[in-house]
């Protein structure tokens, strides 16, 4: 079946209220609501300064949520992103301390380091036949070990880096009423939009979703599943590498434990953003919103005077759970309504409609 034919039969493509859109809109609503609540609780919350802090801080989680979503879409997972961030940040910092190169070269170095590490994961998963969770659980430890051996316990010091590094986070493209639009944030947004486009419109992207919603069927249709999975891990590694660059630019001084624990945060952001852990459903924009939600909460909760900083994670756990339960309830509701619509169409019209309704019903279940 060609792509255009697939698009014509796809039952939900013509609908305005597709489940992804509803999920994204709901999350956007929740983010807006929490901002309003925080504005009441915290004096001077809605200031340019806070906006600037969130938009700079969210960049790393955004890139990692994107890296995570890319592999989760094909029903895999990458638990090694935190270690990849550490290795990329350290090696890039080391490279800059030695050569004093500019930002573009540094970004490329970080992404290549990430892509190489990602290709190790990809090789083992796609061609070695080892489940992704086992591979990346192993490389989570392994990459960290290699970094610790390489670093010999020494840190990359902020003082050794070229001066542009520590300014990088504050580069502002333009300012609207005290709200700075920072370069790093624009970069993250562009990455998300590019990936969203590629996954929604390009053949490569649709195939990734196809693998995730039914791996066996994808193989039987003749899709090059192994190479698609391999390249999605390489892409995920490159994104983690870019996040490593951002980490280095923000931290300045980098130890061998840099980025530890980020793997779980990236999974949390993707999942809150409506990316199904079972693969085949979710969007990059959703993952981005998930990252924004988690980061906004983290940065806001510490400023609520009534709440001690120690409440942060407890709240976060509850909110993640609430977001996922809401998502499931919402999806069930949509599926039920659509299958009811299909049934009605089947009853009111003749035989041709039966075929269409069947297609719609089938599409509905494949979506779930």
């Amino acid at each position, binding site marked *: 079946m060609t792509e255009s034919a697939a698009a014509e039969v796809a039952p939900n493509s013509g609908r305005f209220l597709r489940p992804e859109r509803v999920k994204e809109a709901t999350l956007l609503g929740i983010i807006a609501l929490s901002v309003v609540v925080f504005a009441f609780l915290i004096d001077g919350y809605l200031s340019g300064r806070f906006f600037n802090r969130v938009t700079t801080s969210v960049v790393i989680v955004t890139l990692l949520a994107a890296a995570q979503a890319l592999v989760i879409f094909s029903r895999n997972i990458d638990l090694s992103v935190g270690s990849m961030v550490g290795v990329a940040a350290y090696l890039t910092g080391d490279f800059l301390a030695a050569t004093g190169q500019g930002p573009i070269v540094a970004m490329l170095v970080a992404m290549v380091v990430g892509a190489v590490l990602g290709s190790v994961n990809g090789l083992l998963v796609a061609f070695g*036949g080892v489940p992704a969770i*086992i591979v990346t659980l192993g490389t*989570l430890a*392994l990459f*960290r*070990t290699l970094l610790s051996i390489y670093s010999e316990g020494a840190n990359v010091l902020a003082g050794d880096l070229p001066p542009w590094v520590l300014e990088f986070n504050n580069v502002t493209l333009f300012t609207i009423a005290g709200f700075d639009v920072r370069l790093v944030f624009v970069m993250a947004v562009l990455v998300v939009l590019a990936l969203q486009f590629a996954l929604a419109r390009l053949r490569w992207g649709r195939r990734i979703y196809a693998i995730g919603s039914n791996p066996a069927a994808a193989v039987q249709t003749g899709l090059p599943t192994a190479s698609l999975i391999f390249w999605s891990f390489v892409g995920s590694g490159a994104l983690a590498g870019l996040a490593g660059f951002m980490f280095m630019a923000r931290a300045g001084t980098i130890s061998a434990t840099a980025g530890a624990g980020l793997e779980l945060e990236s999974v949390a952001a993707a999942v809150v953003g409506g990316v199904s852990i079972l693969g085949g459903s979710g969007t990059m924009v959703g993952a981005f919103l998930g990252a924004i939600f988690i980061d906004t909460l983290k940065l806001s909760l510490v400023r609520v005077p009534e709440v*001690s900083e120690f409440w942060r994670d407890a709240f*976060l756990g*509850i909110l993640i759970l609430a977001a996922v339960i809401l998502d*499931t309830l919402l999806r069930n509701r949509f599926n039920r309504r659509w299958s009811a619509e299909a049934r009605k169409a089947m009853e009111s019209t003749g035989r041709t409609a039966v075929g269409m309704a069947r297609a719609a019903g089938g599409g509905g279940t494949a979506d779930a």
Partner: protein
Amino acid sequence: MRDWASKHRWESLLLVVLLATILVNVSLSPFYLGFGNFVNLFWLSIEKVIVVVVMTFVIINGEIDLSVASVMGFSAAVTATLYDGGQVPFALAIVIGITAGAIAGLLQGLVITRFGLPSLVVTLAGLIGFRGAARVLLEDRSVGDFPEWFESIGQRTLVGPFPVALILFFVGLALAWVILERSAFGRKVYVIGNSADVARFSGIEVGSVKLRLFIASGTVAGLAGILFAARVGAVQGTLGETYELDIITMVLLGGVSIFGGSGSMLGVVLALFTVLNIRNGLGLANIDGITQTGVIGLLLIGSVLVPNLAQKYRLRRPRAEAVAHGPP
């Protein structure tokens, strides 16, 4: 013997690795085979090994529990907070702490079974949330000064030369072995792991089995948190952080399929011995903790990769091969 080896390919592989490790370790240190070292081996990671046993059930059942380390911290924090207030006798505080772990497991199990959510997601939220709860209770404090009997609970010998913690582990292990491989409940755990739909159509109460496993997981994690507190003599909000990865690694290394439905207690016990011995040996050779973890990561990947590749190259030979690792 050969028959056993072909039926238990995974276990045989682990046995070879384990024997090799022990040989290397013996050559490194003459004290290695001493009884004291054997006891130490377990006592120094008692909080991990008891959770490994229950995690085996959860993963064979086709689920996962990422929250165990946080529940360990949560239970220990509950106990420490009650005791530190001085209002509650210590033994009662321990009971309440372990109960808190059971409730943590119950809550997560309810969400998983009632809403049909993936356990990976729910227990990830649990990982963050219960760690948060532990931090809420203890903030930056470190609670110590426990009664003397508590701090010596692990080393004190109970029967002959065997200390309490070791007996606890081996009795628990024997019990788990019987339940998993010799009881109707254990059978159900395997069937659900293979196909929850088939299990449901066969009249197995899938939700109830899963719920009981998550309660067990929370309870044992709670107990592990208390034992950890006894071992180090102090409780902080960060107690046990990141242990979940170590625990899951040991289970998977034991040949339990991450997709559920297959695996054996024997494999997990061998994996457990192997990991403890490798860490012990690398420790004797003055190799630091991070590198030890890396070696175990390598072993984890290799243990799945090598048999896979071997099978790929043998594939030309037409032979029907069952790849089940579970008990026959």
